């Protein structure tokens, strides 16, 4: 008479849990590394941006002194003013663009949290190690699978409830402004 292969089923669930956990750990490691690199990049970009702005401000102050001393031709003054306007526009665009890190960081953190939630769910698969009586095999495994299913459902709902998406921007176009 064929019996339910309980031990094989357990081994399968444990393998799913083990391999799934390993892959999720790799994903988490990559995400953490990506976040670290992004943070480092934005810090370096910000520092360079501030330095470039400081140097430009100093240069503009010197040009203003030359202008006040009457050492610039009208044509040169107009040209320098045009440069200044264009630089101002680009500075604004850089400030808008640099905000990518705030948004990508929130999305990455949400993904890391979801990965951790999935790892906890997978651990459930290998956590049912209580021995089952041969005569109660069918009922035991039915109860075990139903319990597992319920825990998965609850865990998944709990995870979704705590991971509301706060970033829906699809590009870096500036956002709406509402004054109440």
């Amino acid at each position: 008479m064929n019996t339910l292969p309980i031990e094989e089923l357990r081994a399968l669930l444990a393998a799913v849990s083990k391999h799934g956990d390993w892959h999720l750990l790799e994903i988490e490691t990559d995400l953490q590394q990506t976040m670290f690199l992004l943070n480092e990049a934005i810090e370096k970009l910000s520092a360079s941006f501030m330095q470039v702005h400081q140097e430009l401000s100093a240069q503009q102050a010197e040009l203003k002194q030359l202008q006040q001393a009457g050492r610039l031709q009208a044509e040169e003054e107009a040209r320098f003013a045009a440069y200044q306007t264009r630089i101002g526009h680009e500075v604004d665009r850089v400030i808008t663009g640099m905000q990518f890190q705030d948004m990508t960081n929130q999305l990455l953190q949400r993904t890391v949290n979801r990965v951790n939630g999935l790892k906890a769910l997978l651990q459930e698969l290998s956590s049912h190690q209580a021995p089952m009586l041969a005569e109660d095999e069918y009922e035991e495994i039915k109860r075990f699978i139903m319990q597992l299913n319920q825990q998965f459902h609850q865990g998944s709902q709990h995870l979704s409830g705590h991971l509301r998406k706060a970033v829906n921007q699809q590009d870096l176009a500036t956002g709406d402004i509402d004054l109440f």
Partner: protein
Amino acid sequence: MTKTILTVDDSGSLRQMVAFSLKAAGYDVIQAVDGQDGLNKAKEKTVDLVLTDQNMPIMDGLTLIGNLRNLASYQKVPILMLTTESSDEMKAKGKAAGANGWLVKPFDPKRLIEVVQKVIGA
């Protein structure tokens, strides 16, 4: 007299960009890393405007607004939200908590300064 703005955001790069834009427009800026830090700094010095993010560790923006509005010195100080959140539901919560405006990230420095000037003057 130079006006002071408290900017509250857990993202260092975002705080830096906000502070840069506001200082360039002639405002003094105090920075806070989360709602609790913002509340502590707001109690130390009453500022002219609070610009806060929503999603932050320890204390979020809506809770910060609620706490500030409970302080006598902050009942009339303008508070603007600057956040990635763009849903009408969140905006309604912000309004109910006592926010005076809602700005969705990313911000354009010129538009930010226009709004700040409209709310508290140059």
